[in-house]
């Protein structure tokens, strides 16, 4: 989709209305479309001149076609635009695209001269008020710049069935005069026009429809007229002598005609078409027309006032063309201009995608935050790429990191550990695979610092999970399980001195009794660290019980020193005779100042290493009586 345009529709030319394969054909888009009203009038066009209406030959391409907007009404959405298609097929439908809704467009994006291929020497839409003069627009749209000058009572009128407005000729000599131009003095040529005669008949002279001649008496150049005597079309030219040819068609006031004349000088052949039908084929001489530097006239008046008046009626879309137009082209033009609504169809709106914040949840400082920006709504061509902009929309956020939360541009996952509380405003900027961009304002709020979980309440059997899955029995007296004392994982054991030499309840034990065998060596260890001048020692040991659950003894190993960083101490304890159960114990003694942290209490069977090099296994046959 063209970059920056938010809406599009496909326009499909019905190939059955195209009479031949054509190149560089300017198709007419003519209709009233509510969505082409400006936003202020309930539509989607942003520019009051319709400049943000553009045409491309592909939805995926940002390369524009050439077009001319003959008329655009921002209130009604009525438009007449001519769009040059590089090729139009008579066998398959031709599709091109109309984009609109781009707020940043304020200049015309098309190319008026480029709309008309080089064979066109003059294209006059004859509509619109020219520069506020009250006269119809007589500007030539081609590159030749053969603009005309209106004269007389020539006015624009609304014409039903023809393109936008046309010119109303009074029949009293008003018309359009184009300054002499070499581009209009050619031999093989075609011309076409829409005409609704209103006052023909009753005159002896022809009423000129067009001329490249100084006067109706034809001493040079040519003229095309309607005879006042028989209402037939006359074509005169001068090739050293005056030539006159008359059509078989008789014009009638009030009837709409699409007239085309082609003259093939080389072949000496004149053809006259009405609408999409060939009316006359006339053999002429092959001598070239003799031109002088006369002006060119559309509808009159002729120079010098000869001709009494001029064509009386409505004329629209006069074109002068170098070369001989074929019936296929003429028929296609007729179909297109006479009935645009059947010549092409317009698709439903292709709504481009819209970036979506997806309601990012609030976060908490230091707590992992993640949010996946959803797939943009409304379409677009995947894959989408996500980026962040500052809220003023002026610059990209470096590395797409806001408050330590990083956006993955491919997945749209935004995650990290928020660094600071606050409300953060930003713009989510999403591109689709065709580089179409959509933005949306987003914000998140990061709350204050982490609330540590409440530690278990010390005393009377509370406490955390003990080794082997049991529960530590924690008495009152300075013990707690805290996050601050975690060596790894989440919590560790904390003991804070009470300031006395003798600390009551200075030991904790696990209720997880381990089955042991007398003689085993238990290799036991834990990690400690002290702070605040922690003194004393920490012990790890076991209480042993016999098979009747009678207490036998307890043994400890004790740390030495007061490390301020995590330090492991280990020792071996031998299971005494008679013991079948051992309960792990941790205790602190002579602890007068500071705080101990204790974590990762383990016991394993005695370590070492072994090597087996042979086994001699003794066995015997078994008999049940033995």
């Amino acid at each position, binding site marked *: 989709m063209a*970059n920056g345009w938010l809406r599009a529709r496909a326009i499909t030319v019905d190939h059955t209305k195209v009479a031949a394969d054509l190149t560089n054909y300017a198709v007419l888009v003519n209709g009233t479309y509510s969505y082409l009203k400006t936003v202020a009038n309930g539509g989607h066009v942003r520019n009051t001149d319709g400049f943000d209406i553009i045409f491309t030959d592909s939805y995926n391409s940002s390369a524009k076609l050439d077009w001319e907007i003959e008329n655009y009404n921002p209130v009604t959405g009525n438009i007449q635009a001519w769009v040059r298609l590089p090729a139009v097929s008579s066998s398959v439908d031709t599709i091109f695209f109309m984009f609109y809704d781009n707020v940043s467009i304020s200049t015309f994006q098309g190319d008026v001269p480029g709309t008309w291929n080089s064979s066109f020497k003059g294209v006059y839409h004859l509509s619109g008020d020219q520069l506020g003069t009250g006269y119809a627009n007589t500007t030539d749209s081609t590159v030749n710049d053969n603009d005309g000058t209106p004269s007389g009572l020539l006015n624009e009128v609304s014409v039903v069935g023809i393109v936008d407005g046309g010119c109303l000729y009074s029949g009293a000599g008003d018309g359009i005069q184009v300054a002499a131009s070499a581009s209009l003095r050619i031999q093989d040529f075609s011309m076409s026009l829409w005409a609704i005669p209103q006052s023909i008949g009753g005159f002896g002279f022809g009423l000129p429809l067009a001329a490249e001649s100084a006067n109706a008496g034809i001493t040079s150049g040519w003229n095309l007229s309607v005879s006042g005597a028989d209402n037939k079309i006359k074509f005169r030219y001068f090739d050293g002598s005056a030539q006159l040819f008359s059509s078989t068609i008789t014009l009638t006031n009030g009837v709409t005609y699409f007239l085309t004349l082609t003259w093939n000088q080389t072949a000496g052949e004149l053809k006259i078409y009405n609408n999409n039908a060939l009316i006359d084929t006339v053999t002429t001489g092959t001598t070239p027309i003799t031109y002088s530097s006369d002006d060119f006239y559309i509808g009159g008046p002729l120079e010098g006032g000869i001709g009494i008046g001029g064509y009386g009626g409505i004329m629209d879309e006069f074109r002068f063309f170098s070369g001989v137009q074929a019936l296929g082209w003429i028929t296609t033009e007729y179909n297109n201009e006479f009935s645009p609504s059947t010549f092409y169809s317009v698709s439903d709106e292709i709504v481009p995608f819209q970036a979506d914040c997806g309601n990012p949840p609030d976060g908490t400082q230091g707590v992992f935050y993640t949010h996946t920006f959803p797939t943009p709504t409304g379409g677009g061509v*995947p894959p989408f*790429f996500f*980026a962040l902009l500052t809220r003023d929309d002026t610059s*990209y956020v*470096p590395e797409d*990191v806001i408050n*330590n939360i*990083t956006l*993955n*541009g491919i*997945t749209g996952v935004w995650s*990290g550990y928020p660094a600071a509380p606050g409300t953060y405003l930003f713009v989510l900027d999403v*591109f689709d695979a065709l*580089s179409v961009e959509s933005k949306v304002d987003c914000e998140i709020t990061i709350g204050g610092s982490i609330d540590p979980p409440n*530690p*278990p309440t010390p005393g009377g059997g*509370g*406490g*955390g*999970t*003990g*080794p*082997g899955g049991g529960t530590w029995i924690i008495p009152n007296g300075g013990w707690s*399980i805290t996050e601050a004392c975690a*060596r*790894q*994982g989440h919590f560790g054991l904390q003991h804070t001195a009470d300031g006395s030499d003798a600390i009551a309840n200075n030991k904790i034990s696990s209720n997880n009794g381990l089955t042991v*065998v007398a*003689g085993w060596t238990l*290799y*036991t*260890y834990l990690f400690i660290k002290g702070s605040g001048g922690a003194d004393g020692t920490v012990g790890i040991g076991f209480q042993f019980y016999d098979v009747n659950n009678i207490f036998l003894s307890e043994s400890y190993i004790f740390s030495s020193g007061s490390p301020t960083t995590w330090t*492991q101490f*280990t020792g071996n304890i031998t299971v005494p005779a008679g013991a079948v159960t051992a309960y*792990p114990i941790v205790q602190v003694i002579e602890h007068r100042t500071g705080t101990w942290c204790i*974590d*990762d*209490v*383990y*016991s*394993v*069977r*005695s*370590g*070492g*290493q*072994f*090597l*087996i*090099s*042979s*086994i*001699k*296994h*003794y*066995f*015997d*046959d*078994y008999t049940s009586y033995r």
Partner: protein
Amino acid sequence: MVDPTYKNELQAQFSGAWLLLDSTDVPRPHGLLSENMEFIPGAAHTRLGFSEAVDTNEAITSMFNWISSLGNLLVYYRSSDNAVRLVDIEAVTPTASTVIPGNLIGYAASYADAGARLYLAFFNVNALGASAARVISFQSGGFVSDPCFQPPIVYSPGPPSEPTTGTITQGLHYLGYRIEYRSGFLTRPSPDSGIGIPSVSTFLPEPFTATGGANAAWTLNTTWPDGAVAVHVIMTPVANQADWRFVPGAFAPVVGGTLMSVTITFDISDDLLFANGTDASPSLFFLTNTVSNAPQILPSIVCTHGDRMCYVTVVSDNVGNNSGAVYISNKNAYQEISADQSIVQLPGLRNITTCISLDAVLYIFGPQWTYRTTDNGSDPVTWAAPQLVDGRRGTLAPRGACVSPSGTYGWVASQDGLYYFPGVYQDLPISYYQQPDWDRINWNAEEAVDIKDNPTVKKVYVIACLDGAESPSHLLTWDYTNGYGSNQVQYSLDSLQSYELGCMEVVKNGLQNMPVGVPQKRELWLAPANESAILRNNSNEDTDPYVDHGFPIFANYETGLFPREGSRGEVYQHHGADYRVKGDGTLRIIAYSLDHAQNYECAIVTLSLQPGLIPHRSFDLISEGVSHLFTQGENILPDGGFETP
């Protein structure tokens, strides 16, 4: 005195456990259980322990021993904040420093050694690329990192002046400039529009109408992007505005991150430009980050393939369907890739998890398939379509395939086993007889699976999460001293007590103060999954080699059944055994009847290193067969944390 009428059977060879078979079918010397054991001819013994190598005290999910002209370095991915850090192993006091700050996304990194540069990609727990690929290099006295595929910039300098006479061909030229980054990447041309993904259409070259008979001086005054080291001028001749050429000699050094004006003067006719100016047109099609450095691909794996760099990633089609892809760089230009010319995909656009380069062949692995392709010297898109090597076997793990240090064979951790991979799959994985253990691997945690081969000790290691664990729990070790066949390797399931495995790497030990025989030896190093030290595998030369970071090794070995297999079907009365053992500590021996229906705990043996012992232990079991379990260092308190109830 043993009754001389008893029969006896002697076993003097010991081999790893065969877990697949029913115990009655396991031929001795293979065992029924081997954990934390090693095997030498004639004996089974406790494996060597691990001791502290570097006390990084960090959780690590991947590490790489980067040996280059820059030294012997250990690079690792710190999982706590997703940073990449680096240690000089040979420093007197190895100290870690951060090379890539913790703004990455992903579970771990993969690494590709490119001499004095190290390429990194990052994968997440779904084995997909997570962050932009990076390059680490050494600049101005320190290690730095940069994103791969750094972008052009939008700065438009305006046309050059023509200060003096010269030979620039009269007429309309176009100018552009290409920024060279310290990562070694000479990016696509600038100025860029900065809108969307840099492409041919976003390149906004500077028109320059030369008057003829003059030279040109082009001033570029901007804040150069981070990592920029030079700027090169490119130009089109008058006759062909699509033919971009480097202007020979027209470049200038710049300082990244600094506002700096450089004026580059050049003087060259179109004839000479065409003759001597290196073609720069292909750079218009380079795939780079956006101007804001947003990546266009997120590789999960990087690996070198000959003189190219491979980036394993995922691409999406226009309707959002993903497929696996490998972007393969231009030769000797590891970051020069284009979206359409550098891509290799598997037939049917099948998924890709990783790739390895072996004997000049690139092997591409998907979850259940393996393909191969070879470099034809041209753009990768022109290479022959990857050929199927195996349609059943591949790997789910980003690190599930590796190349041995010899480069002549590899290893593949397929879901059905560990394969020795010399370019084809063997009929049976080497793990065939350990299938029950292999099937314990939690393939939902495929991101943790890693393979390392240490030819020095002829062992291959697989680190994995077993039994539903979601972080690495075990080290599966195969000793291939006797060959690569499933019936030749010796297996042990290893683990460490009180040490959470994070990842592993085979490292050239350059640490100071190592025992004689250890320095520069290749060793298996382990990194922790929590805040602990990096450990190195001990050697016999270490003072106390049979300790894991201060903790006992929980070693278990259970023999096959006595008497030998040929005697099955008979019931015997088993009286005892003489054990030739040595070591230290105490040894627990348990005699088990068939299928552990009964057991007899023997009196504990107090070991002696020298001389060894032949203690006799009596037991009385009636069974078709009896196995002997030796165990030491048993963990009886497996968890010592203090957590909330």
